[in-house]
């Protein structure tokens, strides 16, 4: 344990002091801040258009009132009644709208007919104007009906409205977006950091420090120390980025919820237990790829051979991405199978759980399979690592070396 903690601490400090860690963490924080700033400014730009109401009619004198309209949504319009009783001529109002770059609607009455004269520079959406027209018409009709002696009950019967209720059986895109983003980040980190551990092993392979290590420490604590220290780096980076977002949300007056809803992301779909599962699956996923890559890389010698091993494993990692796209549509059989295969299960099972396809029971089974497989991979990896890391012959010789290590040699002089 002491040996493990010594190696673990050394490698963790080594990673934390590396320029790569600092640059990637900084980039992640900067990217998060930039996305928040851009989205926030975009939201500010998409404020509701103010429409000044001017009344030149007698019929609407008691109707056009901010108190009456405040309960009605006018789409993207923000009604302003400060110019309600303005008696300027239309030409003066046009000039004013032009000078002050505002939109004005003037209610005018001519021969018993009420007209809405909209003065704007094309910023007003006419669906919203139509809405304003209908609401005003309805209020006017109600007022006239009551004046004609129709009882409120009869009036309510006449004005029966038909409401629209929509039940969407497909997945809510907003609920899927957050898990899918986390899913993509998980795949990226698994590939990136398992590759990082490959580089560490490749370095040990090409550097005789391993011979000193091998004469100082047992293989398993060394192997696990290198791999686990590397595993913590993405978790630390995600945490730092999370703190950065939290600071922006709490101290820089960014409306995080509004930003996320505007981007179609429902963060409410990610609760604490999902986050914990995310970290667990991220680590387990990393270990699968890391143990496989590092044990295989430790038995080859040339840099091109190292790439030949690392690249196909990374390609297998990318398969998870395509499986994740299927998850956006439906919970298919292939998705279920992949959520139990260790090479794909960490990310796919997380996505299935976060989308509501899989229950906690399935998650536990998947985690158990992963842990068992990873224990086996760790022991196998440590063995190959120890035997392979200080061997500099070709692979065929190495395999025969492993195979013949327990055989009694004949013809020994």
């Amino acid at each position, binding site marked *: 344990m002491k040996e493990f903690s*010594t190696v673990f601490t050394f490698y963790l400090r*080594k990673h934390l002091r590396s320029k790569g860690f600092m640059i990637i963490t900084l980039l992640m924080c900067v990217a998060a801040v930039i996305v928040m700033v851009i989205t926030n400014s975009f939201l500010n730009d998409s404020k509701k258009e103010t429409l000044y109401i001017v009344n030149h009619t007698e019929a609407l004198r008691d109707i056009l009132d901010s108190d009456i309209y405040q309960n009605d949504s006018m789409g993207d319009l923000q009604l302003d009644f400060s110019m309600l009783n303005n008696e300027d001529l239309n030409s003066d109002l046009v000039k004013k709208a032009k000078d002050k770059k505002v939109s004005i609607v003037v209610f005018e009455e001519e021969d018993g007919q009420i007209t809405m004269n909209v003065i704007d520079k094309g910023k007003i959406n006419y669906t919203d104007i139509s809405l304003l027209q209908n609401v005003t018409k309805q209020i006017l009709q109600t007022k006239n009906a009551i004046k004609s002696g129709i009882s409120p009950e009869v009036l309510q019967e006449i004005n029966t409205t038909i409401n629209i209720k929509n039940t969407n059986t497909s997945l809510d895109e907003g609920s899927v977006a957050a898990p899918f983003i986390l899913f993509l980040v998980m795949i990226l980190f698994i590939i990136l950091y398992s590759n990082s551990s490959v580089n560490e092993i490749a370095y040990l392979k090409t550097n*005789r*420090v391993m*011979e000193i*290590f091998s004469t100082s420490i047992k293989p398993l604590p060394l192997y696990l120390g290198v791999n686990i220290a590397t595993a913590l780096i993405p978790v630390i980076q995600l945490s730092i980025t999370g703190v950065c977002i939290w600071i922006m949300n709490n101290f820089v007056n960014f409306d995080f919820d509004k930003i996320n809803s505007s981007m179609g992301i429902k963060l409410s779909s990610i609760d604490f237990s999902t986050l914990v599962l995310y970290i667990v699956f991220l680590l387990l996923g990393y270990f699968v790829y890391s143990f496989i890559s590092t044990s295989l890389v430790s038995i080859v010698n040339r840099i091109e051979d190292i790439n030949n091993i690392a690249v196909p494993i990374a390609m297998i990692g990318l398969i998870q991405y395509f499986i994740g796209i299927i998850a956006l549509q439906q919970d298919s059989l292939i998705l279920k199978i992949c959520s139990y295969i260790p090479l794909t299960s960490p990310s796919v099972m997380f996505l299935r759980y976060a989308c509501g396809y899989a229950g906690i029971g399935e998650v536990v089974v998947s985690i158990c399979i992963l842990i068992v497989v990873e224990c086996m991979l760790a022991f196998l990896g440590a063995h190959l690592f120890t035997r392979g890391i200080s061997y500099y012959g070709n692979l065929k010789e190495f395999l025969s*070396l492993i195979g013949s*290590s327990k055989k009694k*040699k004949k013809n020994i002089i």
Partner: protein
Amino acid sequence: MNKVEVNGLVKYYGDFCAVNDVNFSFSSGKLTAICGRNGSGKTTSIRCLLGLLKEDKGEFLVNGSKQELDFKKIGYLPEERGLFVKERIDFQLELLARLKGMNKKDARESIDYWINKFDIAQYKTKKLENLSKGNQQKVQMIATLVHNPDIIILDEPFSGLDPINMQFFIDLIKELKENGKCILVSSHQLALIEGICEDICIINKGKCVYSGSIIDLQNKYSSDYLYFSTKSDVKGLDVEEYGPLSYRIKLNNPDEFNKKLNEIMNSSIDVETIGRKKLNLQEIFVELVGDKK
């Protein structure tokens, strides 16, 4: 007092026999060298001894009993240098010291002691890549000695050193020997080996050609020679030129020295230096393991 014995070591790589029945020993208070051509099996023997490779046959005796070497008591300097080039020197030395069982305080004290002894205190917090090759070699040597090992195995300790640093390393190895350390040195620099080691094991094509003291080796494989140097013309004398202005005459029996000396004195040549000695280790080595045509 420690003694390590390697008996009947055999190691195969697949069908290739890399080490075949090699025997040697090294003990406290004297220096033992292991020599051989490239690929002769020196490093494989050392790796088997260290447990980096599993031997196919043979036994290792530590102080007379069959047991594995205690890693914590071994200091090993690998043939090709191996440390983290982009890492601070003090951090990696502390890691290696702690892996050898030292606590943090003792490790730091030991690092300070050795860094000052090697006169590289100013580089303590620098990355290894910022140091010259000679200074990197010093750091590598500190990594070998930082935990005060009883058994020290040095694989090519003098490679890449300038004459001053080489002398420093020689003095250090002698000092370690006087402090009772059990030291095995693998090197191709036979002139150095001859100057500092008492015992030698010569390996050729995986087999042990000789194992024993260097003096016995010279007595066994070398005649006496009369050596002299002169700027004069040596025509007319039956001499062998073995270097610039340097000559030697093989003595077929011990009494022949005075006869040959008189011959030279009676000639007209102006002798600058003259002496009697055997072939050096380099020449005996070539004689023993060189390809005979």
